[in-house]
C-alpha cells in the first residue's frame, strides 16, 4: 500500500480534557492549537454550546460533521458528574468534502426539477385560462356570425338589384372571413395543445384541388389578379390521410400569398418528389411577388401564443399543421422581391382502385309542404333565436314557437304537439343534455317521438357523442348557414308526412 493511499485512512484525532470550570486542562494539539487553562468556550461558539450541556451528568454525546475552524469534525463529548469532561475531535474534512460534492449535485438537480415542475404548473394554469378564454370568446362570436351568415345567404336568394347584391356579398364574404379566423384561432390553440388527431381516410385529391382552384380563382380575380394552378401528371388522384388538414395547409399557403402579394399573379404548383413504401412525397409551392416580413412565420411556444402577429396567423397554422403531418416547410425569398413557400408532405395513397360515394349536395332541397311543420325553438340567445326563426319562416314550411324559460318549455311539450325541437346548448343555465332528459319525462306521447336537434358551439368528438347519447337526433354547429340548418331539419323530419 502506498503512503498516500494509507494516509486516506488515517484520521487525525485530538483529545481535549476539560476541568470542572470549563477550562482546558490538557490538549494534545494534534489539530487545533488550544491554550491550556483558557476557557474552552472561547475557542469556538461550538464549544460554548457544548459546555452548556455539562450539567453535572455523566453523558456520552456524538456529533458528526461539525464544521469549525476550516475543518469538519466528528466530535465526541464525554461529561462527568463533577462537570469535567473530554472532547474528542476527529478531523474528517476530506471525507465530508466528497460527500459535499455529491450532495451539491443532488440538491441542485432536485431544486431544478422542483422549479421546472412549478413552471409547468404555471404554464398549465395559463393554458387553462387561455383555453377558457378562447372558448368563451368563440361562443360569444358564433351567435352574431350565425345571424350574419344565414341572413346574408337568405338575402342573396331573394330579389336584389345589382348594387344590393354586391353589398350583401361583401357582407357575407367578411362574415365568412371572420368565421375562418375564428376557426383558425381555435385550430391553432388545439394544435399547440397537441389535441389534434389525424384522420386516415381515402379522399379524391383531384376533387380537393379542383375545389381549391374554383374557390381561389374566383377570390383572386375579385382583386384583379390571376391565379394559376399546375398539378403534375404523376400526382396520385386519390390519397389516404387527413383531407381537411391537407386542404388547410394549401389554403393557408395561398392566403399567405394573397396577404403579401404585391404583383398581379399567384402561382400554385403540386408535384411529386417520389413514391416509397405506399407513400407519395408531395411538393406544394406557392409563388407570389412581394416579401413576407421577417419573423412572421416564426414558431412560437404555447406561452408565447399572444406574440403571434395577426397577419402571421396563417403562417403559424401552416407551420403547426406541417409539423403535425410530419412534413417540411420553407419560405424562400427569390430575386429580392418574390416569395416562394414550399411544403413537402408524405401522404399515403391507396394501392387499389378506389370508388368513392358521390359527395352530398351542399344546396338545400326546395320543398313545398302541404302541412306546416310545428317547430319548438328553445334558445335564450335572441340573436340565434331570430336567425333560426327567420330562416324557417322564409321557406313558408314552418310554424315556430320560441321558448326561453325551461318551465314554460316543459309545459309546452306536455300540453301541445310539435314535430321538431331545436334546442341551444343551455337555457337559463340548464345544460341541454340535462334538459333533454327532463323533456323526455314531461313530454306527451306524441312529443316523445319527435326529433330534437342541438344547436351548439361544442362540437368536439366527445361533445357530439354526449349529445347523441343523451337523445339528440342531430347536432348543428354554430355558426351555421341557412342551408345547413334546413338540410339537417329535412334530414331528420319524416318529410312524406308534410308533402
Amino acid at each position, binding site marked *: 500500500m502506498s503512503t498516500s493511499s494509507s494516509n486516506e485512512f488515517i484520521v487525525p484525532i485530538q483529545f481535549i480534557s476539560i476541568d470542572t470550570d470549563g477550562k482546558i486542562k490538557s490538549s494534545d494539539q494534534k489539530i487545533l492549537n488550544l491554550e491550556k487553562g483558557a476557557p474552552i468556550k472561547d475557542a*469556538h*461558539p*461550538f464549544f*460554548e*454550546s457544548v459546555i*452548556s*450541556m455539562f450539567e453535572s451528568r455523566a453523558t456520552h*454525546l*456524538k*456529533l*458528526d*460533521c*461539525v*464544521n*469549525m475552524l476550516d475543518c*469538519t469534525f466528528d466530535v465526541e463529548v464525554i461529561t462527568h458528574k463533577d462537570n469535567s469532561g473530554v472532547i474528542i475531535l476527529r478531523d474528517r474534512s476530506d471525507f*465530508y468534502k466528497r*460527500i*459535499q460534492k455529491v*450532495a*451539491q449535485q443532488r*440538491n*441542485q438537480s*432536485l*431544486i431544478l426539477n*422542483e*422549479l421546472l415542475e*412549478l413552471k409547468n404548473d404555471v404554464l398549465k394554469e395559463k393554458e387553462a385560462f387561455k383555453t377558457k378564454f378562447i372558448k368563451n370568446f368563440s361562443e360569444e362570436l358564433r351567435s352574431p356570425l350565425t345571424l350574419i351568415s344565414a341572413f346574408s345567404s337568405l338575402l342573396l336568394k331573394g330579389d336584389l338589384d345589382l348594387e344590393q347584391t354586391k353589398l350583401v356579398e361583401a357582407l357575407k364574404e367578411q362574415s365568412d372571413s371572420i368565421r375562418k379566423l375564428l376557426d383558425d384561432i381555435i385550430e391553432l390553440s388545439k394544435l399547440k395543445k397537441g389535441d389534434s388527431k389525424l384522420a386516415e381516410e381515402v379522399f379524391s385529391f383531384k376533387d380537393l384541388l379542383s375545389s381549391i382552384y374554383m374557390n381561389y380563382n374566383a377570390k383572386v380575380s375579385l382583386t384583379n389578379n390571376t391565379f394559376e394552378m399546375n398539378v403534375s401528371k404523376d400526382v396520385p388522384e386519390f390519397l389516404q390521410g387527413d383531407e381537411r388538414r391537407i386542404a388547410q395547409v394549401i389554403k393557408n399557403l395561398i392566403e399567405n400569398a394573397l396577404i403579401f402579394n404585391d404583383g398581379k399573379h399567384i402561382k400554385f404548383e403540386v408535384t411529386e418528389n417520389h413514391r416509397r413504401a405506399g407513400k407519395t412525397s408531395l411538393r406544394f409551392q406557392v409563388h407570389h411577388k412581394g416579401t413576407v416580413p421577417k419573423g412572421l412565420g416564426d414558431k412560437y411556444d404555447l406561452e408565447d401564443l399572444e406574440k403571434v402577429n395577426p397577419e402571421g396567423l396563417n403562417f403559424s397554422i401552416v407551420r403547426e399543421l406541417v409539423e403535425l403531418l410530419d412534413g417540411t416547410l420553407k419560405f424562400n425569398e427569390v430575386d429580392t422581391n418574390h416569395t416562394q413557400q414550399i411544403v413537402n408532405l408524405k401522404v399515403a395513397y391507396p394501392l387499389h382502385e378506389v370508388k368513392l360515394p358521390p359527395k352530398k349536395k351542399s344546396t338545400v332541397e326546395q320543398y313545398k309542404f302541404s302541412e306546416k311543420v310545428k317547430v319548438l325553438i328553445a334558445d335564450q340567445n335572441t340573436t340565434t333565436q331570430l336567425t333560426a326563426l327567420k330562416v324557417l319562416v322564409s321557406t313558408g314550411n314552418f310554424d315556430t314557437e320560441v321558448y326561453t324559460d325551461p318551465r314554460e318549455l316543459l309545459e309546452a311539450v306536455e300540453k301541445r304537439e310539435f314535430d321538431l325541437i331545436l334546442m341551444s346548448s343551455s337555457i337559463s343555465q340548464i345544460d341541454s343534455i340535462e334538459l333533454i332528459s327532463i323533456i323526455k319525462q314531461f313530454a306527451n306521447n306524441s312529443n316523445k317521438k319527435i326529433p330534437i336537434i342541438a344547436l351548439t358551439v361544442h362540437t368536439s368528438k366527445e361533445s357530439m357523442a354526449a349529445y347523441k347519447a343523451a337523445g339528440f337526433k342531430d347536432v348543428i354547429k354554430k355558426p351555421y348557414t341557412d342551408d345547413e340548418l334546413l338540410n339537417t331539419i329535412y334530414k331528420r323530419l319524416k318529410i312524406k308526412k308534410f308533402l
Partner: protein
Amino acid sequence: MSSKKIVIVGSFGVGKTSLIRRFVDDTFSEDYKVTIGVHILKKTVQLQDHDINLIIWDTEGTDEIEEIRTSYLLGTHGFIYVSDVTRPKTYEKIDEHKQYLSKNFGNVPIFTVGNKSDLLPKGSISQKKEELDFLDILVSAKEGNNVQRLFEKIAKILIS
C-alpha cells in the same frame, strides 16, 4: 451575558446559510453551496436593556425533519424554520415539522420564516402575504429585509 442556542432548520436550498450570513456578517452570495452537517456561528444582539449571545446552528437542509441528527438539536433554546416562498414544497409540511420539534425537543419557540421575499412578484406581494400568513415573518437574505428584525424578535422572546 447569557447565551442561547438557536437551530436553523428547513429544506435544502431555502437560504438558511444566506440568512445567517446576512445576520452575522451582513454579506450575501448568489452562489448556492450545500451545507453538510452543521456550522456554528455567534452574534451578540443588543436589546434595550439586555445583550444576548445567539449561538446559531446552521443545519444541513432536509425535507424530512426526522433526518436531522438529534444530537444537533439537544439543548436548543429556539428554532427558526426557514422555507422558500417561491417553492411550496418547502413549507407544505411546516405544521407537521413544528409538532415534531415541540414533541421531541421541549416547548421552545419555533419561528417560521419565509425567505426570498424579494422574488415575489411585485404586484402580488400583499396577496401572497395573505396566502403565506401561516408564516411568522417574510425575509430576504439577499436584500436584508426583516433579517435583523427576525433575530431581535427571537432574542426578546428568549430573554423574556
